[in-house]
């Protein structure tokens, strides 16, 4: 790992100032970034830890009933305290392993937008709002492809707001060695329709499956998905599975999520 300066501001304003230099980089829990630095795939001159910012910690309930999670809140805390949105708490409880969940943060996961991460599926399927130091971004506008988001340089995810659905579930088909999602599907049923977000499968990162959403909005049952299929052409193909295999899994895992949620 190349060396860098370490800073740990206590306010969002101080963090934004510390991130102003071009080669400064925000550090959430470090569960992806530190391994990345070890491989010398990144070489920031300054790392700005967001863990010392009290206002970015914790889970609370908004006036409209939504669940608000501070950007620096770790997965274990979400698992323990987001019980008002059980599928979200359950998703957090199965990210990585226990030690990783004690460090990794929701803001870090969403800022990184790993194509196999769990939280992007939860945020997109929930129509969450990603709140930053300067604006609010709808999940539909936020995710812009593998490792790519609407965030500007130096912009910090300070909070994520999740509207709580009537029913929801996340199912993850894990790659057995890494335990990352080979395909993960988050299904959320709201009064105005069903949203389905899929992670792990696409070369473009997390995406919504519009055809399945329409079918499930009409009939929230696994058989509503019979005959629906996605193309494997733009899916990730690697030694763990071809694009066609992942495309097939999308239907199977979506059905499992609907079964579990219904």
């Amino acid at each position: 790992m190349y060396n860098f300066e370490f800073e740990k501001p206590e306010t969002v304003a101080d963090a934004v100032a510390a991130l102003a230099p071009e080669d400064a980089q925000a550090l959430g829990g470090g569960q992806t970034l530190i391994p990345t630095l070890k491989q010398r795939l990144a070489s920031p001159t300054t790392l700005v830890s967001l863990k010392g910012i009290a206002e970015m910690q914790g889970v609370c309930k908004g006036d409209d009933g939504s669940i608000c999670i501070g950007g620096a809140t770790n997965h274990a805390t979400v698992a323990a305290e987001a019980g008002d949105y059980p599928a979200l708490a359950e998703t957090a409880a199965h990210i990585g392993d226990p030690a990783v969940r004690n460090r990794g943060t929701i803001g870090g996961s969403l800022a990184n937008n790993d194509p196999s991460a769990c939280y992007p599926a939860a945020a997109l399927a929930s129509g969450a709002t990603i709140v930053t130091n300067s604006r609010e971004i709808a999940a539909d506008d936020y995710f812009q492809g593998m490792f790519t988001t609407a965030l500007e340089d130096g912009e910090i995810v300070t909070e994520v707001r999740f509207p709580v659905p009537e029913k929801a579930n996340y199912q993850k088909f894990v790659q057995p060695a890494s335990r990352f999602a080979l395909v993960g599907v988050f299904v959320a049923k709201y009064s105005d329709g069903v949203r389905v977000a899929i992670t792990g499968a696409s070369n473009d990162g997390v995406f919504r499956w519009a055809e399945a959403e329409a079918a499930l909005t009409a009939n929230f049952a696994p058989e509503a998905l019979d005959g629906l299929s996605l193309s494997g052409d733009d899916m990730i193909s690697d030694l763990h599975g071809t694009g066609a295999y992942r495309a097939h899994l999308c239907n199977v895992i979506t059905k499992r999520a609907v079964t579990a949620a219904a």
Partner: protein
Amino acid sequence: MTQVNMTVNGKAASGDVEGRTLLSSFLRDQLKLTGTHVGCDTSQCGACVVHVDGVAVKSCTMLAAEADGADVATIEGQANPDGSLNVIQQAFQDHHGLQCGFCTPGMVMSTAALLKGNPKPSEAEVRAYLEGNICRCTGYHNIVKAIMAASGQDVGAIAAE
């Protein structure tokens, strides 16, 4: 270089570190607490698990600077005050929960974290909790037995599958 100060196994510890110094490196190289092992250095194996402010973390994937001001517990602080093995360590010995022993510090620290939050875990909960601790010798069965025994539960029903 910046100075970090923390409490390690109940004693004040401090040292000068670079920004990039890992907590595992600080513990091993500067404090000479080499019981914390570095197996993979990619946050997969869990041999480096320590407790920071009461929760299990992988010390190879945390910066020493991030632990400034924290209360850190390592395997060196786990034995009873008289030097005898604590309940978890003794159970690992009694049930042959180790062979080469390389993963054992992390296993013991993860077990301590598990039992703190869940004093009587089921076998399935034990196996799920150990997802981030890799052992290449035992096949896990005797580790699971040791953890069930350490939590005061009957291990007779746990067969070596």
